[in-house]
């Protein structure tokens, strides 16, 4: 699985998925921790392809969306399910921490 690049007007669709949870990564090209997070997201998206959709959005290209979701720092990862924000993580996360967090969220939200 890859991390899909989307624009602000696509967030709603991405967030409304119900058979998986969705992670939207708000980041910027000038942000060091965002660059460090990219390979982590790629790896975790491979491992959790069955339960999590991964999206990436550039805050500079999408200032209105950043404002709407009250993004005041990057990277910020918002996790959605069925259109609702269910978690928000700020700053760099290593692979273990991110994967554990997402597995827990997927287990609590998805009926198998």
């Amino acid at each position, binding site marked *: 699985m890859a991390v899909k690049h989307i624009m602000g007007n696509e967030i709603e669709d991405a967030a409304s998925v119900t058979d998986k949870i969705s992670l939207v990564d708000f980041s910027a090209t000038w942000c*060091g921790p965002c660059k*460090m997070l990219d390979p*982590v997201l790629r790896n975790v998206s491979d491992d959790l392809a069955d339960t999590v959709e991964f999206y990436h959005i550039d805050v500079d290209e999408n200032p209105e969306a950043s404002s709407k979701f009250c993004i*005041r*720092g990057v990277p*910020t990862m918002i996790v959605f399910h069925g259109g609702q924000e269910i978690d928000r993580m700020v700053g760099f996360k290593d692979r*273990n921490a991110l994967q554990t967090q997402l597995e827990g969220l997927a287990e609590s939200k998805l009926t198998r």
Partner: protein
Amino acid sequence: MDFKTGLVGSSSSTDRELDLIIAGGGPAALSAALYAARYDIEHIVLESYQPGGQAALTALIENYPGIKTISGGDLVANMKEQAESWGAVFKMASVISAVPLKDRIQIKADSSTYMARSLIIATGAAPAKLGVTGEDKFYGRGVSYCATCDAPFFRNAHVLVVGGGDSAVKEALHLSEFVSELTLVHRRDKFRAEPYLAEKLLSCGNCNVMWNTTLKEIKGDEGVQSVILNTPEGEKELELDGVFMYVGRKPATEPFSKLVELNENGTVKTHEIVRTSKENAFAAGDVTDNELRQVVTAVSDGARAASAVFDMLQ
């Protein structure tokens, strides 16, 4: 060096035996990696928590000898490139635990287990939290520990900076270029920061310093809207948009607590600068109890630690 990289033992197919593991990704680890590679010590650097360490998040470094000014991100990227050019080997993995096993150290990192003849602990430190009401709730919604990362979100805004050391003042100066108004609160009546930095902040046009003042509470709705301060004149509410915290650092030493002696504040107890209570474990940079914590001291520690490992392995 009579140990070769490879699969060993029957219990785990992921056990690898090496001469040296370097845990960390900041200047101390990068310097240790450069020296280890040049000493031809068989090693792996396990980069964890935050590649590049705290230095990578520093907007401008002006006190690294030989380089007038450079961004922290560029400096650590150069260090890594230099170490790699000498053969340093990096792997992105978080160290979960490190324990002594006979005369070796067993290191668990993510899904891999390593056996090493020596270890350099250079995992650095993360920003400490102040522990005030609202701090966790508004983290990422106006509360930040990284001006370099988040300053652009506060253009023409009013922000609060908490702290009085080098980091607080340096990052306040960076923030002042973005915001319309900056208030810095410090619990003492003078800065601990370098006088040059302190003077620069005191003469900054949009900066205001409140001495003998502490942050009590952060308030808001979706994001930060105001703070409650304890000032010498009593409690005061200040309307603003963001809060940047620089109130110390928490060393990332928990995985090593069963291997080496730690101080009460979590730093690794050291003697002869980089030696720990365990003879084949060394510590470098912000994890140590050495007083001065700068990029220049971290790289010095890293070099000393790699040199000590080289001597030990002979």
